[in-house]
């Protein structure tokens, strides 16, 4: 009864302010519209949803983690990777489509989508060689100046399709035999991880043509397994071995330099058998200058891709462990926003997204069933 009274009071006040008789008020005929989003803030999150059980239904879920609100959805090609322009205007996806859904002629395109209308802006046809796998960060990347997008091909021969997104054209396909993926290096170069334990850097010119290539050795592939799913913080890519040894690779004047190694686990941790696991198992906060790693106890080598509910935080200056986060559910990939009040986001094994406020050190919410397979999260 209280609720009802409140409601009636509210109604009377509001309508009287409109100078309309409450008794005869009638709702007016309405029109419809299509929403346009505000310019993205740094918390807006793009969930790459591989939707593995229904892989034809791959999509990007665009969400506001502060309000736990679904802002919109971008339908993409079959298990498509995504990258965001640095200027926050554009979302790029590398899409594979088949004329008859699961079969028929294959068409590969780079699609540019407007970050405010979520409408496709343009597309460029690519060689029908796009790599197809559980989506990783370095399958599709963009140069620091937003001029070139690099798309990873795997047939199983490997190459990179270079798209000039300013002129909206495919300008080059660069073969990278024995090497995989593309890690952008400044405005006119990308690196790839190679089976011989090196990073191969390819430098291009303003037309996307190859200028030079060089290799930097950073691990011994016969001695250890290096997880390729590194995270970039500032000018440094942080890789981890499957044993939790961090291998920084610094970009210094456009050159790649293998930095000094340090371990996520001290002797006590190692005796307690802690290990790293997950899909995108590393994240970083440039504001806090911290690295976040998905870790689990009772480690075994075969657990190197296993989910966990535990994230440990490390100071990137000292390499010291500075925090532990326990999430309410096991996540497979993590991401940290780049702003001054960073959120840690985690994609759960059930299709939820965990939202954790790093500045408050508190769990904010679980966005339930926001995706089928939330394999990556990205933000501006």
């Amino acid at each position, binding site marked *: 009864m209280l609720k009802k009274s*409140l409601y009636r009071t*509210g109604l009377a*006040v509001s309508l009287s302010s409109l100078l309309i008789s409450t008794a005869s008020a009638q709702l007016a005929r309405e029109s419809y519209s299509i*929403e346009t989003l505000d310019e993205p803030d740094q918390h807006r999150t793009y969930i790459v949803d591989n939707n593995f059980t229904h892989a034809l239904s791959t999509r990007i879920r665009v969400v506001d983690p502060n309000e736990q609100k679904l802002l919109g*959805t971008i339908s993409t090609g079959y298990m498509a990777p995504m990258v965001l322009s640095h200027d926050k205007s554009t979302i790029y996806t590398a899409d594979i489509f088949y004329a008859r859904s699961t079969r028929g002629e294959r068409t590969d395109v780079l699609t540019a989508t407007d970050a*405010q209308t979520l409408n496709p802006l343009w597309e460029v046809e690519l060689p029908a060689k796009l790599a197809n796998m559980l989506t990783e960060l370095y399958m599709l990347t963009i140069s620091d100046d937003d001029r070139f997008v690099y798309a990873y091909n795997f047939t199983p021969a490997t190459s990179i399709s270079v798209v000039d997104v300013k002129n909206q054209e495919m300008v080059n396909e660069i073969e990278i035999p024995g090497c995989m993926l593309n890690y952008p290096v400044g405005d006119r170069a990308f690196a790839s991880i190679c089976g011989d334990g090196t990073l191969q850097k390819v430098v291009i010119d303003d037309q996307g043509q190859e200028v030079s290539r060089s290799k930097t050795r950073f691990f011994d592939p016969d001695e250890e397994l290096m997880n390729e799913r590194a995270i970039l913080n500032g000018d440094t890519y942080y890789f981890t071995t499957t044993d939790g040894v961090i291998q920084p690779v610094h970009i210094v004047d456009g050159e790649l330099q293998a930095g000094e190694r340090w371990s996520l686990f001290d002797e006590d941790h190692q005796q307690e058998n802690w290990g790293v696991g997950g899909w995108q198992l590393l994240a970083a906060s440039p504001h806090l200058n911290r690295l976040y790693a998905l870790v689990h106890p009772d480690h075994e080598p075969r657990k190197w891709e*296993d989910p966990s509910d535990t994230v440990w935080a490390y100071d990137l200056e000292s390499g010291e462990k500075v925090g532990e986060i326990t999430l309410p559910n*096991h996540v497979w990939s993590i991401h940290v926003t780049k702003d001054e009040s960073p959120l840690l986001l985690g994609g759960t094994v059930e299709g939820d997204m965990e939202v954790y406020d790093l500045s408050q050190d508190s769990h904010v919410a679980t966005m339930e069933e926001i995706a089928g397979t939330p394999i990556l999260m990205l933000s501006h």
Partner: protein
Amino acid sequence: MSLLDRFFERTSRRVAHSTSRRNTLFKLGSWMVAGSALPLILPIDRSAGNAHAAEKGEPGDPGDPTSCDYWRYCSIDGYLCSCCGGSKTSCPPGTDISRVAWVGTCRNPADGRDYIISYNDCCGNQPCGKCACNRNDSEQPIYRPFNNNDINWCIGAESNTYVCTITVIQGVAT
């Protein structure tokens, strides 16, 4: 089966908890579950239900547009755009609005009037998948198509794939 397996198989979750799920579902003793349909089954509860819903609504247009209960949704069949990046009258970004629609007649509990509501589908993207509602209060069989909500009304949009549905007041039924 490891958790890692489960990441790829939402379906597998079924086996583990089907019993508890079904108990939850049917504990109300009929095929209705908590929420939307109850005020309609039990008219005597209607005012209380609306008062509750009104907390989230606007004066004269009470109710929560993210709930199947909301009065405008009396003949809806699909996903509520209010849960998908749109609102009760706006489509989510990245979609198109169907220019043709089916209509229903719904009573506004605030003024007791019957309004003609057009159910316009938003189109050209994947199904939203959030806030599924199916109410057939004024639905009719397919030979009266403009009162039928089982049709994909995205035929009136540039791309005919269905995303979610908005509800637009067209006037008062007379």
